[in-house]
């Protein structure tokens, strides 16, 4: 690009040894790909567990010989025990939330593209960056160890759910898998916290300190704002979980009573009357819930904000229009992040709290609807009247908007105490958070993958396979999660291994089977995605520097970018990130590095009206 030809060249040579280049790499791009690969492996584990759960729910009592061979304790005669099912619930949730939804969007794509999009050569602290990945990987290995060493061969881990509520999680003898399995679970989460904190520290410092010339804050792509806000959320919420995890571990191993109340009976033994159950008094189980959810709610936004950033970016690129209301988008991201710290109580309505606190939490929860609506309407505004290029990335970004609305709207239902109390422990909640936090975030990541793959590997992904993947997945997830709302309204409880004994739920059985079939079909469609990913790395159509006619800095450099991102020339930025369809410009897109041009009286005196400096409707 122009404007940088006179700059002095000072290249940082890439390491040559295989280990320094690909394994213990300091290059943020390699680390980003390592994070994505970790997520791609973790999601297979989590997905397999969800299929096992669905099989047990829809065809209870069926003999699955493979299961019986693999887990003789957990599935005697190939039939799953309820404890085995509960451990699947726990591990599915933990692996998906921590090692997929937190690693891929932030650690993966954020790591790869944040430095390039702000015009930096690397992260501020490359060594910390490498450590953050390897620490996270150790966390993943520890959680996998919980599958095999949970202390009882009848489970694949603890049975406490991803929330690990005390006192169940605080008592080693409380059930199968609650011994070593729960220890490993807590240790894994603590390790993960440390890894995430190192990452967050790096993201924030990089964004504040490493922006290239001209890259003012309001010229950053919305992806960078999203990654930044996500990093701030991680920085402030993970320490709380870490603190809580240490307290929980002390309760289990050092005989303290932070979370364990007095007078508990365990298998008929009163606390303190037998050496198998030492004395505990005065602890508060609710305290754990507060500490957990103070982290847990921001965690939801840690999962979805990067998806929002990617969606804004991709919608604008393929609508060939500036993002509608750039400034409003930035403030909405901040508002969502800020409010996210004051609503954790809505996960605890059913645990019992003063009606006044419940009302406060409820009002704050509902107010998140405002910035969420700002974002949604701005996305629609971006699409309005546009000549859309329906690439696979664009389809997934539109899918994100759809899922965010569909899943978010039930948040307004559950945010009200009177409605939450009857529905909290039902499938309604399962459906709500899977749509909005799970599937929407994953759609954001699919969009990001199809969009940035050519930059990462120099080749385009196959569009036909991509569109096939999109339609099956899009229809599939709605077929899975819309019926779950109905089940929840009827009163089907969460976390039950099967429902054969409940007369009032018998009529729902066909729906349960339908959901399972949809789930299996959706999972099978992901094989197409994995195949497309691998095949395109080697055989995909070659992509140039800028296959999508996009405007931001990552498209000014080679695909894949060289070790120091810009081959020694750091770019200079002259304009905002989404300058599509600029009146008077030669192309329908103007790169951020394009120097300013002086034109004669193009609509002189007309100010932009959308409040953000971009007026996308005047072409």
């Amino acid at each position, binding site marked *: 690009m122009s404007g940088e030809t006179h700059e002095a060249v000072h290249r940082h040579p890439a390491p040559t040894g295989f280990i320094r280049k690909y394994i213990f790499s300091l290059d943020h791009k390699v680390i980003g790909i390592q994070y994505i690969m970790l997520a791609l492996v973790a999601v297979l584990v989590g997905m397999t567990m969800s299929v096992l759960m669905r099989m047990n729910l829809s065809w209870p009592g069926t003999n699955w010989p493979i299961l019986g061979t693999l887990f003789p304790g957990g599935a005697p005669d190939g039939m799953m025990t309820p404890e085995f099912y509960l451990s699947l619930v726990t591990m599915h949730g933990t692996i998906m939330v921590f090692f997929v939804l937190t690693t891929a969007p932030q650690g993966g794509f954020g790591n790869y593209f944040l430095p390039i999009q702000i015009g930096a050569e690397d992260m501020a602290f490359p060594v910390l960056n490498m450590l953050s990945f390897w620490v996270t990987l150790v966390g993943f290995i520890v959680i996998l160890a919980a599958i095999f060493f949970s202390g009882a061969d009848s489970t694949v881990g603890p049975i406490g759910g991803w929330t690990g509520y005390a006192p169940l999680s605080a008592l080693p003898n409380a059930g199968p898998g609650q011994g070593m399995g729960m220890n490993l679970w807590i240790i894994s989460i603590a390790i993960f916290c440390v890894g995430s904190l190192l990452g967050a520290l790096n993201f924030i410092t990089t964004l504040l300190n490493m922006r290239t010339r001209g890259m003012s*804050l309001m010229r950053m792509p919305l992806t960078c704002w999203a990654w930044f806000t996500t990093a701030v959320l991680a920085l402030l919420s993970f*320490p*709380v979980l870490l603190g809580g995890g240490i307290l929980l571990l002390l309760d289990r191993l050092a005989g303290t009573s932070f979370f364990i109340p007095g007078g508990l009976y365990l298998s008929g033994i009163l606390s303190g009357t037998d050496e198998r159950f030492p004395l505990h008094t005065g602890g508060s189980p609710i305290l754990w819930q507060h*500490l957990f959810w103070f982290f847990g709610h921001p965690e939801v936004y840690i999962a979805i904000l990067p998806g929002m950033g990617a969606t804004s970016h991709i919608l604008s690129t393929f609508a060939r229009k500036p993002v509608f209301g750039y400034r409003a988008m930035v403030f909405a991201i901040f508002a969502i992040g800020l409010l996210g710290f004051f609503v954790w109580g809505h996960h605890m309505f059913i645990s019992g709290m003063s009606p006044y606190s419940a009302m406060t939490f409820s009002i704050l929860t509902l107010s998140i609807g405002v910035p969420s609506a700002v974002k949604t309407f701005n996305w629609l505004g971006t699409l309005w009247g546009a000549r859309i290029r329906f690439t696979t990335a664009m389809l997934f970004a539109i899918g994100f908007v759809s899922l965010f609305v569909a899943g978010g709207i039930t948040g307004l239902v559950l945010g009200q105490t009177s409605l939450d109390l009857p529905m909290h422990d039902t499938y309604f909640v399962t459906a709500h958070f899977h749509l909005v936090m799970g599937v929407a975030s994953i759609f954001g990541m699919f969009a990001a993958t199809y969009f940035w793959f050519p930059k990462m590997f120099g080749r385009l992904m196959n569009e036909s396979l991509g569109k096939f993947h999109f339609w099956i997945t899009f229809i599939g997830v709605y077929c899975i999660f819309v019926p779950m709302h109905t089940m929840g309204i009827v009163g089907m409880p969460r976390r039950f291994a099967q429902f054969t004994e409940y007369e009032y739920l018998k009529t729902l059985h066909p729906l349960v089977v339908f959901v399972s079939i949809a789930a299996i079909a959706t999972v099978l469609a992901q094989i197409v995605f994995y195949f497309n990913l691998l095949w395109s790395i080697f055989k995909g159509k070659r992509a140039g520097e800028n296959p999508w006619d996009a405007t931001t800095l990552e498209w000014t450099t080679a695909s894949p970018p060289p070790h120091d991102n810009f081959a020694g020339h750091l770019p200079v930025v002259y*304009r905002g990130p989404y300058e599509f369809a600029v009146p008077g410009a030669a192309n329908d897109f*103007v790169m951020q590095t394009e120097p300013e041009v002086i034109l004669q009286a193009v609509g002189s005196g007309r100010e*932009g009206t959308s409040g953000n400096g*971009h007026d996308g409707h005047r072409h």
Partner: protein
Amino acid sequence: MATTVTGTKTIKKGKSPVGGPRFPGGNGGGSRGRNGHNGDMSHFESSANRYRIGMWVALAAILMMFTALTSAYIVRAASSNDWRPIAMPQILLLSTALIVASSGTLELARRKLKEAFEVSFNRWLLMTTALGVAFVGSQLLAWRQLVRQGVYVGSNPHSSFFYLLTATHGVHLLGGLIALTYLRLRTRRTERDGQALAKRHAVADAVTLYWHFMDGLWIYLFLLLFFWR
């Protein structure tokens, strides 16, 4: 009349467009004044700033963790009638004096570094490290006093919190000692170019900030554990 087109917004000449300065500033908003400023001190300064920024960010995370533990402390103290505060080990007064003194010596070291007095910088830095080690030793002695009295981690909620908070603070302080050693060994004046010097000053600022924070944190924990209520 000539107007400037920046993006889709058409503005009058002389008016700054929304979203940034009209021409990229030297070392401003988009901050890394790399381009065309090689060898410029301001560039080194701004690049080395990452250590100062990174430290503030890290302290925010540490603060959140101790905030969480504090709220657990307050909730736990109020939630039951088994709260029996332990007697303060007298040696903690010595610990407090040691860490306050170490903050002072480190501040002196940092100033000597800025004034390029290498010898006194090293002397004060060494003094700080010694005081830091003495603090950790003093904390361990406090633990031993309690153990002799038969007060363990699980004895009662207050002793649990005492051991937990002192241990967590101690681990962070050990990190501080490693940072002091790093400052002493890895940023020697061997390479006296601008970049190394700017980095050294920034690392010294960051380590000092961390140490002062640990000092303040200890005073806070001391007051919380023995003078709250």
